[in-house]
């Protein structure tokens, strides 16, 4: 798109006759691109440098976790390991200490699984039906509640945390996994409802009307028509929720007891614990282990992830 611009800047530097050449040449087709033009070098050069910058922490994490502590103390953090050891990984997983517990990150991992799976399923189930009701079965006042919900998504969590603690305590689920699952469902509601509402509203209305004429009701239409047609949006919602819930720290710390702490909280406790000698290799192995699940989801899902965050962007 900038052939002319590139040409102009080249022409400015070249001899004056280059200018006349151009005029004489008159209208011409697309200028063939040279692979090694200055412009390309600049663009790809910048992008490669940027990409290296983005990759650097991941690289440092991985190589640090594969070194032994003596090597870390002597060498520099960017040097590849001389002697590869998987011991830090084993230790991070099975025997790193948080406080008095020394059973490693594995406990946090399984807690996170037990939090993420039901939270994702429950929040998506509720929000999809909700979005469907908003898109196809509008009733008086629905838009008002929906507006409150979306505006509420911008309210800092800190404002609502304590009232939720009270509600959960009254319900007898404060500190338990059930309570945390409920919290994730609540805070997933705005974005997911928006996602599903917009998706269902975009489906052809004739489909819905035809089903109505045939006598199908609310749930029949949802399960027999809407659900099978919207698998992609369910996948997007799942990506959004799995990464979001897995990465959560604040809710985990506030709403669960230590034995139910999710992986992020446990990771932070392991790495930032003040007692004992700092084992940087174990810390980095633990960090990678915690990041592995969302990274896996990210690399596998590719474009759908981008779609999810583009939708999630509305939430902020």
């Amino acid at each position, binding site marked *: *798109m*900038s052939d*002319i*611009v590139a040409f*102009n800047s080249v022409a400015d530097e070249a001899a004056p006759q280059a200018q006349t050449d151009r005029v004489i040449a008159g209208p011409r087709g697309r200028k063939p691109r040279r692979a090694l033009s200055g412009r390309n070098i600049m*663009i790809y050069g*910048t*992008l490669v440098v*940027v*990409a290296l910058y*983005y990759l650097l*922490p*991941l690289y440092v*994490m991985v190589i*640090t976790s594969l070194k032994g502590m003596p090597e870390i103390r002597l060498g*520099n953090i960017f040097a590849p390991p001389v002697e590869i050891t998987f011991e830090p990984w084993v230790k991070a997983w099975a025997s790193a200490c948080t406080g008095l517990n020394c059973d490693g990150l594995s406990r946090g991992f399984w807690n996170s699984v037990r939090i993420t799976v039901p939270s994702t399923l429950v929040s998506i189930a509720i929000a999809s039906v*909700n979005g469907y*009701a*908003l898109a196809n*079965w*509008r*009733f008086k006042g*629905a838009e008002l*509640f*929906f*507006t409150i*919900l979306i505006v*509420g998504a*911008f*309210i*800092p969590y*800190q*404002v*609502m*945390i*304590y*009232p939720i603690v009270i*509600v959960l305590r009254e319900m007898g689920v404060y500190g338990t996994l059930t309570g945390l699952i409920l919290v994730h469902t*609540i805070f997933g*509601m705005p974005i997911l409802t*928006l996602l599903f509402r917009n998706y269902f509203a975009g489906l052809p209305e004739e489909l819905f009307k035809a089903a109505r004429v045939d006598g199908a*009701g609310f*749930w029949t239409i949802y399960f027999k028509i809407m659900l099978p047609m919207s698998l992609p949006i369910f996948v997007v919602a799942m990506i959004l929720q799995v990464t979001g819930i897995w*990465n959560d*720290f*604040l809710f985990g710390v*506030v709403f669960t007891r230590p034995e139910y702490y999710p992986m*992020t909280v446990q*990771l*932070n406790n392991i790495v930032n614990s003040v007692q004992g000698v700092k084992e*940087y290799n174990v810390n980095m192995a633990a*960090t990678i282990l*915690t990041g592995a699940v*969302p*990274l896996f989801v*990210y690399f596998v899902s590719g474009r759908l*992830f*981008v779609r999810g965050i583009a939708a999630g*962007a509305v939430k*902020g």
Partner: protein
Amino acid sequence: MAGHTQGSGRPNQWLRNLNAKIASVPMILTAVVIFLGGTIWTVVYSFTNSKLLPRLSFVGLDQYERLWDAPRWLVSVQNLAIYGIFSLIFSLVIGFVLAALMDQKIRFENTFRTIMLYPFALSFIVTGLVWQWMLNPEFGIQSVVRSLGWETFTFDPLYNADIVIYGILIAALWQGTGLVMCLMLAGLRGIDEDIWKAARVDGIPMWKTYIFVVIPMMRGVFITTLVIIASGIVKVYDLVVAQTSGGPGIASEVPAKYVYDYMFQAQNLGQGFAASTMMLITVAIIIVPWAYLEFGGGRKRV
């Protein structure tokens, strides 16, 4: 249920469309009880002297006066301001430049995008801990540069109270600019190709076209991105906890951490409520004008 004849005074007004109403109960409860009710509750209790437990004994603006007298809160607000201004500027500028580079019909676009966006998939805790390690003065970047010969090279933001917030900024930008780039790229792709052709015919240099034509056209994208970044900034918490735990001293405290610490550790609920109400006001200052601009005129789709 639905599809009765229209008109007022139907006997079964409430039963009409019953399934949809039942399906919306979770949304209504969340919106009204938690979002609306919870917010009002916190604001009301910020005017009380609740300590360990919430109590309705009003003390007027006492908590707010105490809040704005507390050095730790002032540091938190100042940090948030610095962090906020710089992360807004840098993530918008870097995000836009990267998006503009990515929009040059380059090869390997997907690879570059995947690399730039992957930090966004990570938890703030993970990001904070990696950068804590990278910025470790004993082993990290500082020691590597020193071992290359610059013996006096100093780069220890996380251990220097004056610049610690910039150390956090580095990590935040690493995690967040990929997202801004993606949003900007989507905006650039929405620009009509004819605009570029017209600019080219008129011989306008590319950078001028970007600044004077394309950016004004992307106003909506910029505003949306701004709101996203800004409301994320106010919430910054995990990153600070992981990277510095607010230290050295109180040098990297932020409002969200103040709220948490006062509510759940110092057992001074009133302070926590007052501080969180201030956060709410900050967000409202950002959101309300935006919402007014975006949805104020004609009612568009949310």
